[in-house]
Structure formats: C-alpha cells, structure tokens
C-alpha cells in the first residue's frame, strides 16, 4: 500500500515542473560547491609543494656551499655561515611543518581558510613563525566560501522546505486531500508515503551529486580512513535533510495555509541556521572570552626585554642547569659570550615566561570549543557544521592536533640545535641529512568516528522527536474546515 502511494506520489511529483527546477538548481549548487572546494584544496597543495621545493633547494645549496667554505673558495660572513648551528637552526636549515589536506578536504573549506597550514619552524620563539596567514581579501573570509558545506548547511534545507512546505496544505487547498482520503487510506499513511518519497528523492540526489562532485574534484579514496569519512558524510547529510523534512511535516500538521506554513518554516530556518548560531557565539564568547592579543603582544615583549637585559646572568643559570653544554673554554679568551650563545639562554627564558600567557589562550579557546561541543545540539545546523568540518579535516580538532605536533616538533628542533650552538659544533655535509623533519601524524580514525557518531545521534534524536510529534498532531488534523 505504502509503495503504491509512493508510486502515485512520484507520478504526481514528476508532473509538476517546480520540483524539477528546484532539483536542478540544487544540482548546480552542489556541483559548483564541490568544484570550489577542490579548487581550494589544489591551491593549498600547490603552496605546500612550492614550500617543499624551496626547502629542498635551500638544503641542497647548504650541501654545495659547505665544502666550498671549507676549502676557502667561498667567503661568507660568520652570520651567514651555513656551518654555524645557530644559523642553520634559525634560517638556512629550517624545515616546514606541513598539515596536508585530509582526503576529503574538498567537502568543507571550514576553518582552513583562516588557519595557516604550514609553518617554517625555527629556533626562535613559536610566536614568530606560527602566524603566517594565507593572503585573502578579508571580505571573502567574512562572506565565507561557496563550498559543499555551505550548500548542505544553508541551501539544502531551503530546497527541502520549498519541496515540502505545502505537503498537506497544498493538497487541502486544491481540494484533492478530501478526495484522496475518501479512499481506504489513512492520513498518516498518506503523509508518510509523500514524505518518504520526497525525502528519499532529494536526499539521494544530493548525496549522489555530492559524491560525483568530489570524485571529479580529485578526492583521494586510497588514504586510510577516507571511506569512513565518506560514510559519515552520507550519514550526516541524510540525517540533517531528514530533520528538515520532519520539521515540514510537523508544521503542515497544524493545518494552516501554504503561505502561513512557508512563513513559519522560513522563520524556523532562520532560527536554526542564523539566529541560534549567532546567539551561541555570544554565549561562548561571554563565558570564555579569548584573552586580548594586544595584551599578549605586550606581555611577550616585556618578557623578551627582561630576558635580554639579564642575558649573561640567564646564560650562567642555563649552563648551571646544563653543565654538559658549556662551550669549550678557548685559551686566553675570557671575553663576553657571543650573540648566538646568549640567544639560546634568552629565548629559553623568554619562552618559559611567555608560556603561561600562551597557555591561557589555548585554555580559553579549548573551553570555547568544549562549550560549543556541548551546546551545538541546540541547532541541527551547528551539529552538521561541526561534523562536516570534522569529516573534511578543516575544523578546530584536526588543526589543534596539528599545532600540538608542531609545538612538540619545535621543542625537538631546539633540543637538536641548542646544544650544538653552545658547543659550537660546525655542521658538515653529512649533518644536513640529520636535521629533524616534521611528519604529520593523522588522528586515529576511531576517535574521529567517536565524535561523529555523537553528531549523527544529535541529528537523529530531533528527527525522531519531531516525527513523533507530527504524527500525534496529524491525528487532530481536520481535512475539511
């Protein structure tokens, strides 16, 4: 019976030109969004490739220069000498810490246009290299991108609502509802058939189009975890769509006119997609305000000044803690320590006194994220947004995973260069290969799946609640006023 009703509904639907037009529009938007996302991923890949090429070239030129300096055919100032460990660790030998785009990065640009995706790690303080923002007209960042996530979060619900705002009211207004119900069919069954067919059609269409889009855009399905991510994208997109279909049924169940339904549904869309997120943003910022970057700059500067002033004292203290690193005493030279040696102690001390300030930032931003994670269930749009970013690897989680690895690498980098700087161990050609390199380790797919499962549940629970509510409300539906 349900199937027969659905096939009838299908005929009904295909006779109407509006759904076809709407579906076409959605197809164009999805295709364009997927293409746009891939374009951004390719842009990032290109920037990464040129950074890697630059690094290779630079290291090769050290390898070429060192023998020439040793045999005296090339003269350089001590500051630019590629054999000096301080120089290698600060400029000539530095390496990039790169966050490669995740396999399905094209699905959502997310925060990836805002966060730097590669750093040139040096022996300097992390604040000097952790701010290389990508160039972009700020208005573009403000407007956001037309990517697949935008289509899914904003347009797809509107298309769904355009598809279903007059699901029952339309039939009632044209007088066909009474006619239909004169057959041995219950209203509940009729509505179920109508909504199942429409939802099935639109959701499947969107997913297929999205998949085609990213497949053409060059998603890498060979990478481990790609299929799991894809599966979750399908789940989230379906559940999010189901929510809006359920909402349309619920509003229709009140038996108001099509125009009234359209207004109420537009209002609900506004509430969930625009108003709730902006209110949540306020709550989050009020609860855990990010400390002032302006104050942070001053704090770092004061710390740096203090450390520089106490330079030689700091060095003495540093060497007391690390006696094995004491520079070899050159006979007859009791003069002041050189700049590079002092620098080691000064940056060590500066970073240590700045650390609490930076930790405060990290702590507040983590607290904001925690609150968002807990309160996102207030709006399915927020649940879907954070899930889509997470799937694409362009959200805060993967980025945090990356920066914590960069910080660890920075420590390792200093541990490699500082002792050499103090002991003045000159670099040889063979040493160049031993300079630490950064390799990004992807987060385990299990912990990603764990987070995403929560999001899927956060979408499905409202679907069930709204659906139950609608079928209760439908019992009191009056077919003829």
């Amino acid at each position, binding site marked *: 019976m349900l199937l027969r009703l659905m096939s009838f509904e299908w005929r009904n639907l295909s006779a109407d030109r509006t759904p076809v037009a709407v579906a076409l529009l959605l197809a164009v938007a999805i295709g364009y969004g997927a293409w*746009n996302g891939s374009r951004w991923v390719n842009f990032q890949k290109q*920037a990464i490739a*040129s*950074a890697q090429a*630059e690094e290779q070239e630079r290291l090769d030129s050290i390898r070429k220069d060192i023998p020439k300096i040793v045999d005296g055919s090339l003269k350089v100032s001590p500051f630019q000498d590629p054999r000096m460990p301080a120089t290698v660790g600060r400029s000539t030998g530095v390496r990039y810490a790169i966050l490669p785009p995740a396999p399905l990065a094209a699905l959502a640009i*997310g*925060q990836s246009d*805002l*966060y730097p995706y590669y750093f040139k790690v040096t022996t300097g303080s992390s604040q000097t290299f952790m*701010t290389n*923002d*990508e*160039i*972009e*007209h*700020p*208005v*573009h*960042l*403000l*407007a*956001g*991108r*037309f990517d697949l996530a935008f289509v899914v979060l904003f*347009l797809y619900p*509107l298309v769904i609502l*355009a598809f279903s705002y*007059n699901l029952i009211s339309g039939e009632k207004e044209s007088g066909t509802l009474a006619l239909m119900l004169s057959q041995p069919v219950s209203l509940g069954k009729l509505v179920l058939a109508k909504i199942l067919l429409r939802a099935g059609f639109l959701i499947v269409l969107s997913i297929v189009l999205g998949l085609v889009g990213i497949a053409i855009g060059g998603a890498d399905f060979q990478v481990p975890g790609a299929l799991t991510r894809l599966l979750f994208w399908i789940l989230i997109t379906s559940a999010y769509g189901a929510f809006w279909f359920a909402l349309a049924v619920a509003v229709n169940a009140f038996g108001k*006119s099509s*125009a009234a339904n*359209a*207004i109420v549904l537009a209002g609900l869309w*506004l509430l969930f*997609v*625009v*108003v709730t*997120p*902006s209110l949540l*943003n*306020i709550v*989050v*910022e009020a609860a855990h305000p*990010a400390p002032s*970057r*302006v104050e942070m*700059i*001053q704090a770092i500067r*004061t710390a740096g000044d203090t450390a520089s002033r106490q330079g030689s004292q700091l060095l003495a203290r540093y060497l007391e803690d690390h006696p094995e690193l004491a520079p070899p005493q050159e006979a007859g030279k009791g003069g002041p320590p050189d700049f590079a040696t002092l620098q080691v102690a000064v940056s060590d001390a500066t970073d240590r006194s700045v650390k609490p300030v930076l930790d405060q*930032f990290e702590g*507040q931003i983590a607290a*904001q994220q925690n609150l*968002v994670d807990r309160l*996102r269930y207030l709006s399915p*749009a*927020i649940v879907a*947004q*954070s899930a889509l*970013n997470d799937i694409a690897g362009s*959200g*805060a989680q993967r980025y945090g995973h990356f920066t914590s690895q960069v910080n660890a690498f920075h420590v390792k980098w200093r541990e490699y260069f500082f002792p050499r700087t103090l002991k003045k161990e000159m670099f040889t050609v063979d040493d160049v290969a031993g300079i630490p390199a950064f390799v990004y380790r992807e987060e385990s797919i299990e912990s990603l799946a764990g987070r995403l499962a929560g999001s899927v549940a956060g979408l499905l629970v409202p679907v069930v609640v709204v659906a139950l509510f609608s079928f209760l409300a439908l019992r009191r539906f009056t077919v003829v006023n």
Partner: protein
Amino acid sequence: MILRIAQKEITETLRDGRFRASAAIVFTLLAASLLLGWRHHAEVSAQHNAARQSTRNQWLNQGKKNPHSAAHYGVYAFKPNSPLALVDHGTNDYTGVAVWLEAHKQNEFKYRPAQDATSVQRFGELTGAAVLQLLVPLLIILLAFDAFSGERELGTLRQLLSLGVKPGSLTAGKSLGISASLLMLLVPAAALGSLAISAASSSGEITGALPRAAWMTLGYLLYYGALIGVTLAVSALASSSRTALIALLGFWMLNALVAPRAASDIAKSLRPAPSAFEFAQTIESAMKNGIDGHDPAAERTSRLKQDLLKKYNVSRIEDLPVNFTGVSLQEGENHGNAVYDRVFGQLWKTFAEQETIHRTVALFAPGLATRSVSMAFAGADFSHHAHFATAAEEYRRGIQRTMNDDIMRNAGKSGPYLAADELWSKVSAFDYKSPDAGWVLQQQGPALLILSVWCVLAIAAAYWAVGRLRVF
C-alpha cells in the same frame, strides 16, 4: 487618499500579531547587538590605549643602544576601532589587529580575532549590521508580500478598485504605510544606536562619526526603499500570495546568502591574489636580486660606495665625513621601501580590482552594495585597514630615517656607537587620524549610486506593476 491608504495599512500592520512578534524579535536582537557592540568597543579601546601607551614607553625607555638595534627593536602599531564599528564590525574580525614596525621589513598585520573564535562564528555574528542586512529585509517581505495579492484573495481588491482609487495613489499609500510601520521599529533603534555611538566616541571622534552615521543611514534607507518597491511589485504581479512569498524569499536568499559568496568566488577567479608563499618569495628575491632581478645586493652596495667616494672626493671609506654604515642602512631601507611599495601596491591593486568585481555583482544584488556602504562608513572595511597600514608604514619609515640619520652623523669612525634617550624621544608618538566621511564617500560613490538606482527602479516597477493590476 494616499494618507488614508497609508493609515489603513499601518492600523492593519499593528493589529497583525505576526508583525508585532517579529518586529519585537528584530528590535530585541538589534538592541542586544548594539549593547554587545558597545561593550566590545569599550573593552577593545581600553586595551588598545593601554597597549599604545606601553609600546611608547618601551620605546622611550630602551636605554643606551645602537640606533640600529633600536630600529630592530621597533614599536607596535595597534589598529584602533572606530566607534561606528559597534554597529558594523565589517572585516575587523578577519584582519590582524597589530603590526610590528621594525627595521628592514614591512610586516603583515597579525592576530585576526576570528582565529581565536570557534567555527560557529562563521555562521555570522550578531551585529547591528547582521540584523539590518539580513533580518530587516525579511521583515519587509513579511510586511508587504501580500499587500496586493492578499487584497485580491480576500476580494477587497475589487472593492478598492471599484472606488476609483488611482493605481498611483494605491502604490504610494501602501509604500507609505509600510515605511511608517518599519520606521516605528527603526527610529527607536537608530536612537539607541546613536546613543551607543556617542557613548563610545571620545570627544574628538564624535565630529567624525556624525556624518559617517548619516551616510550609513542613507545607504540603509535606499536599500529598504528598494526592497519595499521590489516586494510591492512582486506582490502585484504574483498570481497568489504564496507565489509572491516564495519568489521574495528566493530573492532574499540569493541576495543575502548566495551573492556575497558568489561575488567572492568570481573575484578570486578573475583576479587571483598570490599565495602567501609566493608573496614572501617575491619580496625575498626582490630584496636579494633587485626589483627587476638584475641588481644584486652586493652590486648595489659597491655602487653606493663608489658614488659616495666620488661625491665627497675621497678615496677611502674612512675618510668620508659621514658614517658609511648609516648611509648603507638607509640605502637598504630605500631599496626595501621601493620593493614593498611595489609588492604591496600590486596586492592592494588586486584587492581593489576584486572589489570592483564585487560591485559589479552588486548591480544584481543590492545587499552587496549595502554591505559595502555600511562597513565603509563604519570604518571597518579593507580600505580603512589599508589606510591604517599605510600610516603605520610611513611611521616605520620615519623611525628608520631618524635612526639611520643619527648613525650617519654621529656614529664616527670606529668603535661601538650607543645613542641615548634623547634620540628615542626625537621619534614622535604614532598619532593616527582616521579618514573623514568625504574620503569614504569617494570610494562608496558607486555603491551608493547602485542603491539609488535600485531604489528608483524598484519603486517605478511597483507603480508599473500596480498599474496593470488585475482583479482576478
């Protein structure tokens, strides 16, 4: 007659629970956003004033140093927040707040506030601008989508036209009524906004803020005029209220959601900006090899040496009446300045071309023109950022000149040279004056023109559509 129609319209609107509820919501959100904006502004201003003071003190009290060390130490410039930004943050969250002014380098602004927020911010913030650009247009649609189609459906249109009301008066009356209802919401909001702005402005800022606020208001009024015209025209043309509503919501969506993103994408495709990596590479290679790539640094130095020796007619550097390091440092700065002028000039030209493309898209989506006018007069668009960046860079170059001049004159021939506090105080404090409304008007002229044309054409369309109104 017109007034009577308007009066009927207002009475009807005020009795409508839907309007009352949504107007109350919009007003509450607007008031809340203004309050938040004011608080945010007060906080940021206090922080910036303190930081400005402390960066100045650091500079003045750096003790005995070589002037070039002082130049490397540098100062920070903190971008001030204009008082009108409490209505419209514009791009403030997406541009850095501070720049380090040091020797040899025109640094980029660092720390975009959006980087310290969660991804929820990307849905859009609750600001006065968001309410005025997203929600008020929806309210207009809600107010007027059934202005004619609804009368037709109720059967009152036949009565109305049989009375011999001229279509012109009908349109005028309806638009007047709708505008009056809207103003009942907007006037108190504007009063509240002015209060917040004057509370946030220092006595010096208020004279600059007034004309800016007036132009911003004009922009919004033109936009709302256009929207009322479009809504009435669609309502008169549509076969039913339902169709009118769907069409208008579609227009709203394209105008408010799709157009800004589409404009960005088109602009990026037609006038791509370089990646940060390419940009840095261009600067590095121009620094090393000369702007055209055929003037390496070593050759520039030896040429400078020869020129100087010739100028003073001596044969050894030591015999020069000026300190060569100072001359050479300043020459390096001059070369750097030329490089930065060129690369930043090119980048900002690309951005300006991208903005021209945004404006072209705004021909079809007046919301974009409104966004541009609003954030520009709020002092929160890219032009204001660039204006500040240019002033900061001028200040940086001044510091370098003063330091290098001092080395040139006083460093002598040998031994380390240390300058004292008098030199640091020779550099005056960085005093930034934001541009006046006339400067903004020059840039926003086209956007205001687009809004005016939309307003006039939309109202004309409403008159035309009502003129051919059919009872059935």
